[in-house]
């Protein structure tokens, strides 16, 4: 177990900037999630740390030691992949044993280790099977076991849940969390799924174009997004962004524009915080209903608010229909303010 650090890392593939002067410090035992849109080079950061790809510039440390010149096999990290990456020519036993054999373990000691790990992950009955005979969930358990079995200094996970169907995804997600709570191995987890990130992370770094848009605890990321990119990326449905000039004076006061020019401010309102009321209610924004999306206990509605599409919530959608007029109300404390030009968060 060890702390992990990226210090001023730069890496580009042709025109694609993977990392541009990127610095990250991950504490010993921390579950750290790299969150970003697909194709932004998140996986490459893991490859850099694992030593598969050389960085163009910068230093990487594992346990305080500069590993930039250390070959992958000596970096003591383990990896879990979206594709599982089980060795198809080896059975489950040999897949689990592979990292141990590379360390010179053999015979009875090896067998004991493999069987113990198989027991913890419920793979005892599968040891003689080939990966192609396993289900997706079983494969990812084997992959977890193969990564865990030698107690690496750090765990690198590259979208490990993306190939699983919805039910299995939750199951393996819990398994990953359980493994982390038990072993407290420093984990670097890459995903494009913000919900997954929120559920698992101690801290999340949101990546955009090779640099960090924001790095914070999940609650802080949700409560105080640093800019409109993070605001839209974290939380489902994404946050509504509106020009502040839409607000009439009383709401403007409520939104605490505090004398700022409304034209220079973008307003952020999470759909969860925007409540659709019946027409005629006072002190709210008037909007026209476009679509209704029942969500079980309540209904999402998409509405047109002076030319901007917004999403709002309604406790009971039954009495609304597309084309109706509704009023959208929000609590003063739920408003996020961003600079309209730079997209950066304003105040506090």
């Amino acid at each position, binding site marked *: 177990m060890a702390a992990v650090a990226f210090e001023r890392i730069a890496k580009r593939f042709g025109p694609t900037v993977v990392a541009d002067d990127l610095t990250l410090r991950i504490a010993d035992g921390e579950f750290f999630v790299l969150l970003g849109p697909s194709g932004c080079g998140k996986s490459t950061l893991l*490859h850099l740390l694992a030593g598969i790809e050389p960085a163009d510039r910068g230093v990487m440390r594992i346990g305080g030691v500069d590993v930039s010149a250390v*070959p992958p096999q000596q970096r003591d990290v*383990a*990896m879990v*992949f979206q594709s599982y*990456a089980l*060795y*198809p*020519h080896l059975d489950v036993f040999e897949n689990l044993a592979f990292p141990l054999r590379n*360390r010179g373990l053999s015979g009875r000691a090896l067998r004991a280790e493999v069987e113990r790990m198989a027991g913890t992950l419920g793979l005892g009955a599968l040891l003689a099977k080939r990966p192609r005979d396993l289900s997706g969930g079983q494969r990812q358990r084997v992959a977890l076991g193969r990564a865990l079995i030698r107690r690496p200094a750090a765990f690198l996970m590259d979208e490990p849940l993306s190939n699983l169907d919805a039910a299995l995804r939750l199951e393996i997600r819990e398994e990953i969390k359980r493994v982390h709570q038990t072993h407290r191995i420093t984990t670097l987890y890459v995903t494009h799924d913000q919900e997954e990130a929120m559920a698992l992370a101690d801290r999340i770094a949101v990546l955009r174009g090779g640099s960090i848009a924001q790095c914070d605890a999940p609650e802080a990321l949700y409560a105080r997004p640093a800019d409109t990119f993070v605001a839209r990326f974290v939380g489902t449905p994404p946050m509504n962004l509106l020009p502040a000039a839409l607000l009439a004076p009383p709401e403007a006061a409520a939104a605490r524009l505090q004398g700022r020019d409304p034209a220079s401010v973008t307003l952020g309102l999470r759909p969860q915080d925007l409540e659709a009321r019946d027409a005629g209610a006072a002190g709210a924004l008037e909007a026209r209903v476009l679509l209704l999306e029942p969500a079980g206990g309540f209904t999402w509605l998409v509405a047109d608010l002076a030319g901007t599409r917004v999403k709002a919530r309604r406790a009971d959608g039954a009495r609304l229909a597309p084309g109706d007029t509704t009023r959208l109300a929000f609590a003063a404390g739920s408003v996020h303010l961003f600079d309209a030009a730079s997209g950066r968060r304003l105040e506090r």
Partner: protein
Amino acid sequence: MIRRLGTWLGLAAACAWSLAPFAWQVLTSVKPQAELESLPPLLPSTITLVHYEAVFAGHPFAHLLLNSFAVAACATALALALGSLAGFALAKLRPPGRAATLAAVVVLSMLPPVATVSPLFLLAGAAGLRDTLTGLALVYAGFALPLAVWLMAQFFRSVPDDLYIAARVDGCSLLGAFGKVMLPLAVPGLTATGLLVFVFCWNEFLFALTLTSSTAARTVPVGIALFPGIHEVPWGEIAAASVVATAPLVLLAAVFQRRVLDGLTAGAVKG
């Protein structure tokens, strides 16, 4: 229904056209000498093996077969070893300049052999490798390498990158990952490449003709091309020798049909 019949007739014609010339040679090889000196009869009245006996008894044909086998096997082993290492590096390590390297490899594979036969003749002489199996095997390996590198790069490309990364992270050195994970997964590609290279070496004629001068290193194609005839051409013996020289390849192609097809079409279609 008529369409189905047309397909079958067409297929039958294609198979007949492909098989007939070689089948005729097989028939020739078992015809008694007297029946070779006139036509008809098309079919032999009795099957005789005298031509086969003559090939092996009267000529050093067995020695040539051994030479051919040794040269082809050594050249194939060498080309596979070097080609799979290079193909792996090109496909999985992605060094800068790999596109140019691959393009150069392709261009080299298109060199007409006759263009380099004179310098190789002189170089082999200078190196003392003329009329040796070693010299021939080296030349064959070199000429087969572009194909081997190209095919192996294609096959390694189809092994997921994640498996290479997993092997490295799980504690394998570069060569360890190559030997323990990549190579076992590339066995079908290795087989296909090996078959094509072996067939190339077994069939090669120009270098075998120019770089060898005696039975010591002469191979089967040269033996068949220069088949001695004092007064008249010994067609029966030539046919017998042809069948013996071809049988191993037809057998290999039949047993490893899938792999041969993979090898012939890899790169051209997928690539």
